[in-house]
């Protein structure tokens, strides 16, 4: 059987499983729609949170980015896991005790203000939308490569599947489908990683193979550093970003993780405060399996790639090279006419060009002719970072079913995250906006209908962005993290840990933190306000890391303003004392 048939079988089976679970657990009341009736065990919730959190970016892109960035890629590894420690220690237990459905609910009640609630709803919607568009794109890319359909059709199929279990099933459907999706995605990530680790180092665990040695007895990382030096790249284990930038990006990603609404809402689904703490631990444990294997996969893939292509005849290249050339994510031009592939430091394309443009012709050697190659750059090869995880099993010559499995895993990762985000969007609209502000006397049934309509509209908008993405999807994702860090995190933390924090301080902090971060990103990422040159960056901090500065400013402004304005009312101060004590959280969830 070939790769295509294996892909149909594995993707078909896993999809049947997800839909089956969604139908089996169809939601009845509004409470079940939002938070699974408060009856999910910490272990199941940990698995679901892990699937929710690990998106197409974690599964498909991250190992690829690290593979090209080396040490600099550590920002994603530490940033996206360290945030869980903040979440488990500073947020999850208290929000669970508070016992409402959403983050805007907490902000609105704690700061006794509809303005604060509205600011929070807008932040939640913005963060969730930017994220979900990227997931839909991920679904489309996987379909287009393995099923040989157009990206557009892939996105439409993904939209229909997501709609089914997010909109009809609600949160309960999502919790259990996400448990299934975690199992699929971790299996799909680890099987090829283990195969390749054994192949290259003899270690079964990729985490150990990462520090292991090849047949020649030289540690793999040393060999890779040597290869990098030979070809003119920065040493793999050193990286090239400045220390302050690495620090700020790591911090922004950590705090952003802790502030993401679709992850926070998961901790409302367990019965007790105790369970909220424990399920954050399980979630990080399950995430860590992938996150400690990913840098190993990155090193294996990088070494394999260089050793397979560098200084080898193009005509003797394995089949995956021409397969990926067909997708346009890999390109080669024989600039010096020796028939061999020169893979060296620096872009192969003309300055400022991000992807190859093909003329439609092929050369005598069989490669596709590229219109925008830079003839003066010594590097002849263009490789898109996003193909590394998908191409890795092919590069290592693994069996076809393993390659198909990776496709099924990529889809599980993208779909689980998309569904979780859609739920945040629909609850924000139906519950925080409709019920709390527009029509407080809406019936439970009416609210459920509003939530489903909102989810359906969100699927369609997300699908549109998936088919026709804005220019820089990666930039928009960085924006989502920076905004979550600069807006939600300080407001929630201060709401729990400072009894004196009042609405004036919190609102001013959120608006100024958010505004400053948006300004910086618009200026330096999109070049919309004045100079966007690297030399003008504040303290050399890149836009991806600026959410950290925005967060510090938010904290400072909130603390300062609250000192000059009246303290919060007595009942709010009592609420804060109440959420600090874990007992009694069970009552709210007795059906």
């Amino acid at each position: 059987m070939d790769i295509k048939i294996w892909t149909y079988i594995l993707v078909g089976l896993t999809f049947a499983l997800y839909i089956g679970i969604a139908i089996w657990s169809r939601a009845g009341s509004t409470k079940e729609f939002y938070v699974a009736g408060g009856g999910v065990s910490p272990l199941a919730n940990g698995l679901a949170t892990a699937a929710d959190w690990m998106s197409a970016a974690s599964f498909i892109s991250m190992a690829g980015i690290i593979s090209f960035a080396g040490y600099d890629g550590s920002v994603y590894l530490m940033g996206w896991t360290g945030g869980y420690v903040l979440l488990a220690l500073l947020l999850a237990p208290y929000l669970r005790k508070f016992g409402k459905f959403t983050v805007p609910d907490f902000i609105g009640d704690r700061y006794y203000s509809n303005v604060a609630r509205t600011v929070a709803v807008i932040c939640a919607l913005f963060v969730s939308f930017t994220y979900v568009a990227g997931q839909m794109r991920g679904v489309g890319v996987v379909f287009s490569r393995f099923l040989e359909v157009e990206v557009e059709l892939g996105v439409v199929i993904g939209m229909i599947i997501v709609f089914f279990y997010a909109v009809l099933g609600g949160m309960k459907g999502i919790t259990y489908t996400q448990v299934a999706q975690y199992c699929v995605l971790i299996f799909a990530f680890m099987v090829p990683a283990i195969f390749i680790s054994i192949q290259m180092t003899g270690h079964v665990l990729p985490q150990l193979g990462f520090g292991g040695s090849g047949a020649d007895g030289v540690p793999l990382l040393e060999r890779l550093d040597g290869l990098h030096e030979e070809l003119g790249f920065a040493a793999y284990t050193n990286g090239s970003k400045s220390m302050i930038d690495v620090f700020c990006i790591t911090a922004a990603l950590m705090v952003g993780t802790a502030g993401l609404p679709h992850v926070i809402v998961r901790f409302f689904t367990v019965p007790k405060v105790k369970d909220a703490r424990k399920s954050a631990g399980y979630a990080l444990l399950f995430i860590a399996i992938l996150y400690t294997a990913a840098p190993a996969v990155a090193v294996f893939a990088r070494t394999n790639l260089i050793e397979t292509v560098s200084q080898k005849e193009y005509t003797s290249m394995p089949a995956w090279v021409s397969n990926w050339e067909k997708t346009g994510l890999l390109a080669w031009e024989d600039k010096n006419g020796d028939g061999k592939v020169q893979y060296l430091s620096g872009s192969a394309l003309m300055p400022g060009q991000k992807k190859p443009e093909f003329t439609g012709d092929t050369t005598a050697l069989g490669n596709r002719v590229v219109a925008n190659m830079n003839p003066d750059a010594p590097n002849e090869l263009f490789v898109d970072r996003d193909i590394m995880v998908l191409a890795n099993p092919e590069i290592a010559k693994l069996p076809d079913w393993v390659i198909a499995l990776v496709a099924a895993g990529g889809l599980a990762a993208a779909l689980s995250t998309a569904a979780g985000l859609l739920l945040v969007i629909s609850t924000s609209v139906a519950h925080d906006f409709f019920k709390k502000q527009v029509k407080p006397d809406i019936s439970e049934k009416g609210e459920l209908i509003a939530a489903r309509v909102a989810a359906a509209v969100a699927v369609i908008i997300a699908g549109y962005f998936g088919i026709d993405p804005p220019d820089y999807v990666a930039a928009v994702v960085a924006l989502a993290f920076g905004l979550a860090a600069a807006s939600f995190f300080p407001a929630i933390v201060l709401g729990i840990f400072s009894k004196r924090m009042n609405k004036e301080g919190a609102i001013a902090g959120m608006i100024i933190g958010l505004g400053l971060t948006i300004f910086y990103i618009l200026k330096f990422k999109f070049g919309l306000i004045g100079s966007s040159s690297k030399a003008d960056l504040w303290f050399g901090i890149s836009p991806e890391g600026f959410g950290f500065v925005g967060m510090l400013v938010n904290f400072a402004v909130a603390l300062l303003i609250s000192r000059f304005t009246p303290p919060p009312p007595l009942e709010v101060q009592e609420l804060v004392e109440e959420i600090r004590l874990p007992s009694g959280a069970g009552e709210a969830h007795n059906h």
Partner: protein
Amino acid sequence: MDKQQAKKYWQANLRYLVVLLSIWFLVSYVCGILLVDQLNGIQLGGFKLGFWFAQQGAIYVFVLLIFVYVWLMNKLDHKYGQDA
């Protein structure tokens, strides 16, 4: 639980947080970023130590930290009758 007890419970909680978050900061920001060059001079198996902290060690410690916190808080809850 009276006010005095609640205050003591909260202060014990804050002490745990300070200790655990200091370790959190140490393994990631200090070992993985600020002192990475110095630690890279030390070899751990096939890894440079600083690089290992940044791409492996910090993550393992993070997982442990949460489970230690769960264990500490369960004990504290029990002591103050908060585990109902």
